[in-house]
């Protein structure tokens, strides 16, 4: 589903490479975790996958279902089935959450040549998914993420993900700022979305999220390269020993 080949990238005018040859293959149905210390390039990788134009790819390629994504606009990538759950979901005053969800869903359907959902069909769907995530109708009437607590913002991201039903979900530090109860709600939401034809990449700093969202493969990203790949036990080892072993290795 996703193939990242020898990806090199830097931020805008700054020539310093942040990604220095990332290779990663994710197959349908798999959940991959990417772990790594601060500054290893985890968030950069997620933004580049989503198509943020602050970054410049200098070498390598990203294939999504066999086709290069590098020339695709962010909205085209979304319509093709890629979803990034943001580490810091953005507040948009003046846009009601409900309006935003409907606009996004219908824009994607339109781009794929599917018919737009009618308001009653849409409402039924939203109510069902929102209830699963403990999101009230009152929250949906409020402007997107404005005045939401950290936990509410993350739940709002997962609600968007479940409504948009992407093929590939990338979650950037979805556990940051969550207490144990909120973490459970978010993880349950993510687990409901696991399916044989959907892949997930979970980017995280800590192992605790992986107790709830159990990965098939764990990678360690350090200084812009994947320096180690293993099973879920690798996450436990990292929790115990820290990243010190790997920071040196990548230099």
């Amino acid at each position: 589903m996703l193939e990242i080949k020898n990806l090199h990238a830097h931020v805008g005018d700054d020539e310093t490479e942040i990604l220095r040859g990332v290779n990663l293959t994710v197959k349908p149905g798999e959940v991959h975790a990417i772990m790594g210390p601060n500054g290893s390039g985890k968030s950069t990788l997620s933004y580049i996958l989503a198509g943020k134009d602050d970054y410049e790819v200098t070498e390598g390629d990203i294939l999504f279902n066999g086709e290069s994504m590098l020339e695709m606009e962010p909205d085209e990538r979304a319509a093709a089935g890629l979803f990034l759950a943001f580490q810091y979901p953005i507040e948009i005053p003046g846009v009601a959450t409900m309006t935003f969800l409907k606009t996004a869903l219908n824009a994607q359907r339109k781009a794929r040549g599917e018919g737009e959902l009618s308001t009653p069909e849409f409402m039924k769907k939203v109510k069902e998914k929102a209830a699963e995530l403990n999101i009230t109708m009152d929250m949906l009437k409020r402007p997107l993420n404005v005045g939401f607590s950290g936990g509410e913002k993350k739940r709002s991201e997962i609600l968007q993900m479940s409504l948009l039903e992407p093929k590939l979900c990338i979650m950037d530090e979805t556990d940051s700022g969550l207490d144990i109860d909120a973490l459970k709600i978010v993880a349950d939401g993510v687990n409901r979305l696991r399916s044989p034809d959907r892949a997930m990449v979970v980017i995280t700093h800590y192992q605790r999220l992986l107790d709830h969202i159990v990965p098939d493969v764990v990678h360690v990203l350090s200084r812009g390269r994947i320096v180690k790949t293993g099973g879920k036990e690798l996450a436990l080892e990292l929790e115990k020993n820290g990243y010190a072993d790997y920071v040196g290795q990548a230099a």
Partner: protein
Amino acid sequence: MNMETRSLKTSAETELASLFDGARGDFAGSDAVRKRREEAFSAFDKRGLPHRRVEEYKYSDIRAKLKSASALVAAGTDGDAKAALDAVATYGDLERYRIVIDNGRLVTGLSDIGALKGEGVTVSDLNAALGETDGLLDVSTIAAADPMIMLNTALVLGGAVVRVGDGVEVSRPIEIVYTASATGARYTRCRIELGKGAKATILESFEDDVAEAEGNAVSDFVIGDEAKLTLARVVTGEATHVSSVLMDIGASAEVKAIGFNMGTDFARTQSFVTFSGEHSNASLYGITMVREKQHSDHTLVVDHKVPNCESRERFKAVIDDFAEGVFQGKIIVRPHAQKTDGRMMTQALLLSEDASMANKPELEIFADDVQCAHGATSGQIDEDLLFYLRARGIPEAQARMLLVLAFLAEAVEEMEDEGIVSALEGRIRDWLSVEE
């Protein structure tokens, strides 16, 4: 004696003088009213059209803009007015009463005068009212020196006097629609009075702008004690339009007003708001939407003459291409107007490199126990917001439109009434979707 020498009149100024000469024989009203109009013209004539060296018009040079003065528009037939009215779509099927002013004159046949009377609202023709009541052309202290209001006083063709009786709560909004069924300059004036404890929503729709003809409208609101006014104004079209709102607010009254300058070649909306009674509050919002080489000016003077009043001013501008936006806002707090609370904010969203916005906020505070603040921002669409929307599958053009709408909605939604909010947002959407 005024020693100011103005050696040369512009051709527009000369034409205005001859317009006044030609029109004075037709003036309605008492001798006092005629005298008032003569005085107003002579005061205007001394000053001439305002230009960039007049501080209040620094950014909106009317003398340079108005190369010549159009002849006064002739009265149209009711049939023509009906056709012009039918072309107006702003409030769609919102249930409302209408008062129609075509070519600067009240069209009684198209106005819901009977139904309004049943609600306790009287509507009369300004020209008839001028013969019965003195003082209808008077203006407040803060507006007295404005040359464009002087010109309106001198040349006014007609309008309406709307009186909402004491304690009357009008069940539907009242829309005053200004239409044009012929070309020519329109000098109109409406006086709207809310009696003690009255409650009304007034919509003013200026749909009368015909290219190459100028409009000069004065809307004079007198808001009684404990009254509640909701006001939404939309100025649109292709002409040069100067619109003046006078507002005198009694005690314990509440005002919520929004004014749009939308896509007009040259529009200035100037509001002069006076707090005359204590414990009142006014929320004043303004929207500018311009593109190409359009020019929009929102000028506001709020006079806190008495203690214990609260005013909120919030202005938003969306400016594209080479267009210019202007905001001038002045809050005056008189020496004894203690406990005044005034907050003014102006924000501009510039959609192109060449778009410009001039902000001039001023506070003149002569009391010592007050809270006043102002702020101004100008910026582009936030790229992070744009990326977020696009990452959810919303194409760039649609995402931009959504963000502009969101920027303006913060002010528009303060109007609360769902029918009005959705009509105004519909107008915004229409404006945005014609953008290339």
